C-alpha cells in the first residue's frame, strides 16, 4: 500500500499552467466520480487553491496510478506533456505525508504562515468525504494534518507578525490602542491606497470613518462605500481633535500637517494618543511630528520595514515548524507501518481458530458423550493455549515491524506460520 501525492504549485508552475490544470476539474462531483472509477485508487483527495492543484491517493499500484493521474491532467488540449512533466511533482509515502502537513501548516504557501490555506484544505476534505472518496488512511492523515497545523500555529510564531503593509498598520494600531474597536479614523485623500487601508480597518470595528478629499465628490463616494462621512480638507484641524487614526495618501506636494499644528491639537485632545500613517509619496505629514509625545507617525517605508521584519520572523519560525512537521510525518509513517501487519495478524488468528475448531471436533468425536460444561472447558482450554502461543508473535509484529528497519520480518512470520499456502495444502499439512 502506498500513499501518493501529485500536483503543481506556485513554485513549479506558472499561473497560466495552474489555471489550465484547475480548469480540468470544473466540478468536484464529476472529478471524484471518474477518480473513484479507477481500480488502482482505494482512497483519493483532491484540492485546488489559487496556488496549487494537488491530488493525494492511497494505492497498491503506484506506477499505474501515476500514469492514470498524468493522463487525467494532460487531457487539456493546451497542456503539452513536456510542460506537465516539468512542473508536475510526485511524492511518495513519507514525503507525501510531509508535503500535506507542510501545505496544511502553510509552510508551502506563497505568503508563509497565511491562515487561509488550512480552511481550504479542510473544505476540500469535507467535499471528498461527501463524495465518499476517502477511507481510513486518508481520514486519519487529514485529521493529523489539521492537528499538525494547529500545533505549528500554537507552538511557533509563524502567524504572529504582519507581512503586508496594511496589516502592519493594523497590528501597530493594536499595540498603541489595545483595541481598534471604537476608534475614529480620518482619511486624507481618497486614492486606491486609502481604500486598501480602510478595507483592513473595517474588519476591526472602528467607530467612525471620515474622508477628507480635495474633490469632495470622490470623498463622498468613498465615504458612502464604507459607511462614513465626507469632510473637506479645510476642516482638517477640528477633525484632528476627534480622530485617533489618520491615514494620509493625498498627492499634495507639501506637508498637510506640521509639527506645530499637531502639537496644538494634542494639547486640545488632552494628549489622547494619535496614530498617523503617511502612505503618500511625497510625504504629506511632517516627519518631525513623530517627536511629539503620544503621537506615532509611520510612513510607507516604515511600514514596509515592519512587514519585512515580519517576513524575516516568519522565515525563522518556519524552521521550527519544519521540525514539528518532520516529527509528525515520521509518527504517521509508523502508524501506517503498523497498518501493514494487520492482515498478517488476522491471518494468524484465523489459522489458529481453524486449527482449534478442527482439533476440538476430532477430540470430541473420540471422547464420546460429554456434558456441556466439559465441552466448554475444552473450548476454553484450546483457545487459551493458542491465544497465549500467538501473543508473542503478534506483539513482535506490532512492535518491531517497520518497513525500513526490518523489511524481512513480515514475510518471515508469514512463512514461519505458513500463512500463504493454498487452502488445500493447508488442510493436508494439518492432518
Amino acid at each position, binding site marked *: 500500500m502506498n500513499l501518493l501525492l501529485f500536483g503543481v504549485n506556485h513554485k513549479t508552475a506558472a499561473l497560466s499552467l495552474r489555471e489550465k490544470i484547475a480548469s480540468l476539474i470544473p466540478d468536484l462531483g464529476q472529478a471524484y466520480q471518474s477518480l473513484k472509477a479507477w481500480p488502482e485508487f482505494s482512497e483519493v483527495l483532491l484540492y485546488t487553491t489559487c496556488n496549487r492543484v494537488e491530488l493525494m491517493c492511497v494505492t497498491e499500484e503506484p506506477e499505474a496510478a501515476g500514469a492514470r493521474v498524468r493522463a487525467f491532467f494532460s487531457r487539456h488540449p493546451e497542456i503539452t506533456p513536456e510542460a506537465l512533466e516539468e512542473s508536475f511533482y510526485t511524492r511518495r509515502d513519507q514525503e507525501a505525508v510531509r508535503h500535506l502537513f507542510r501545505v496544511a501548516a502553510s509552510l508551502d504557501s506563497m505568503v508563509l504562515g497565511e491562515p487561509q490555506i488550512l480552511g481550504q484544505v479542510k473544505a476540500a476534505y469535507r467535499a471528498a468525504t461527501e463524495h465518499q472518496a476517502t477511507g481510513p488512511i486518508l481520514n486519519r492523515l487529514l485529521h493529523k494534518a489539521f492537528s499538525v497545523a494547529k500545533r505549528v500555529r500554537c507552538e511557533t510564531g509563524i502567524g504572529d507578525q504582519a507581512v503586508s503593509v496594511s496589516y502592519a498598520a493594523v497590528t501597530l494600531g493594536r499595540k498603541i*490602542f*489595545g483595541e481598534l474597536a471604537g476608534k475614529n479614523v480620518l482619511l486624507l485623500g481618497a486614492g486606491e491606497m486609502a481604500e486598501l487601508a480602510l478595507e483592513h480597518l473595517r474588519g476591526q470595528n472602528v467607530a467612525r470613518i471620515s474622508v477628507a478629499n480635495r474633490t469632495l465628490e470622490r470623498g463622498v463616494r468613498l465615504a458612502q462605500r464604507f459607511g462614513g462621512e465626507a469632510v473637506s480638507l479645510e476642516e482638517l484641524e477640528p477633525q484632528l481633535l476627534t480622530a485617533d487614526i489618520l491615514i494620509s495618501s493625498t498627492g499634495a506636494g507639501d506637508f498637510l500637517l506640521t509639527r506645530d499644528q499637531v502639537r496644538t491639537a494634542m*494639547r486640545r485632545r488632552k*494628549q489622547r494618543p494619535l496614530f498617523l500613517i503617511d502612505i503618500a509619496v511625497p510625504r504629506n505629514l511632517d516627519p518631525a511630528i513623530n517627536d511629539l*509625545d*503620544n503621537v506615532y507617525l509611520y510612513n510607507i517605508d516604515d511600514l514596509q520595514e515592519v512587514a519585512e521584519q515580519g517576513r524575516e520572523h516568519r522565515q525563522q519560525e518556519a524552521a521550527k515548524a519544519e521540525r514539528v512537521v518532520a516529527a509528525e510525518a515520521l509518527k504517521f509513517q509508523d502508524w501506517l507501518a503498523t497498518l501493514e501487519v494487520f492482515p498478517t495478524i488476522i491471518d494468524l488468528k484465523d489459522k489458529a481458530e481453524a486449527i482449534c475448531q478442527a482439533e476440538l471436533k476430532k477430540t470430541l468425536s473420540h471422547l464420546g458423550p460429554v456434558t456441556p460444561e466439559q465441552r466448554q472447558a475444552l473450548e476454553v482450554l484450546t483457545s487459551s493455549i493458542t491465544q497465549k502461543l500467538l501473543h508473542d508473535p503478534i506483539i513482535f509484529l506490532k512492535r518491531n515491524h517497520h518497513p525500513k528497519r526490518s523489511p524481512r520480518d513480515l514475510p518471515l512470520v508469514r512463512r514461519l506460520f505458513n500463512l500463504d499456502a493454498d487452502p488445500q495444502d493447508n488442510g493436508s499439512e494439518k492432518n
Partner: protein
Amino acid sequence: MGNFFLYLTLVGYFGATVLWLGFFLVQRESYCHWGAWVMGAGLTAHTVALIQETWSFGYLPVATFGNSLLVFDWALVAVFLLLNWRYPIKVLGALVAPLAALLVSGALILPQGKGTVSPLLQGFWLTVHISLTLLGYAALALAFLGGIFYLIQERQIKAKKFGFFYRRLPSLSQLDTLNYWCLTIGFPLLTAGIISGSLYAQHAMGRFWSWDPKEILTLLAWLIYAVLLHERLTVGWRGRRAAWLAICGFLVLVCAFVGASLWLTGYHSFAKFIQKP
C-alpha cells in the same frame, strides 16, 4: 514555626517566577494562569506566616527592616493578584513574581531582631498608619513596574525598531491605564497613611509633623504623585511623562523606605524601634 510558612511562601513565589518568566518567553497562556494560582498559594502561606508572627509578637511585625519588607511584599502580591483578576496585564507578573521572591529571600536573610518594642509604637492607629502606607507603596510599585514596561514599549514604537519585547509587552494604552489605576488606588492610600501617621504622632508625641527624613522624602514623593494625578485629570498628561513621574515617585518612596529607615536617623528609623533586650 513562622519560618516554615515563610519558606513555603518562598517556594510559591519562586515557582510563580519560573511560570511567569516561562510565560514571558514562550507566551503560553496556561503558564500565566498557573503562575497566578501558584502565586496565590504563596500568598496564602505568606498570610499564615504574617498572622503567626503578629500573634507571637503581639503586634504587626514591622519593627525591623526585614519584617516590614515582608509586610510590603504581602501587600504587593495581594494588590497584584487583585489587579490581575480585575484588569489583567499578564506580563507584569514576570516582574512582580521575581520581585516578591527576592523580597522574601531578603527578609529571611536580614536579621530577625526580636526585642521589646516600646508600647508607644504598638498602638492600633500605628498599625493602621503602617498598613495603609505599605498598601499604597504596593500599588505605586505596580505603577512603577508598569511605567518601565511603558517606556520600553514606547521606545520601540517610536524608534520603529521592534525587538524582543515588542511582541511580549501589552499595548501602550493598557500600560497607561495601569498607571492611572495604580495611581488612583495608591495615592489615596498613601495620603491616608500620611494623615493617620500624622494624627497618631499628634496623639503620641504632641506634634503632627517633625520633619524627620522619612517624612520629608515621603512628602516629596506624595507631591510628585499629586502633580501627576492633577495633570492627568486636568491637562491629560499621560504616556511617557506619566510613566516617568510614576518611576521617579516610586524611587523617592524607595529612598524613604530603605534609605531613611536604615542610614538616616530619625524617629522612623528601624534602629530606634527595638531596644535590645
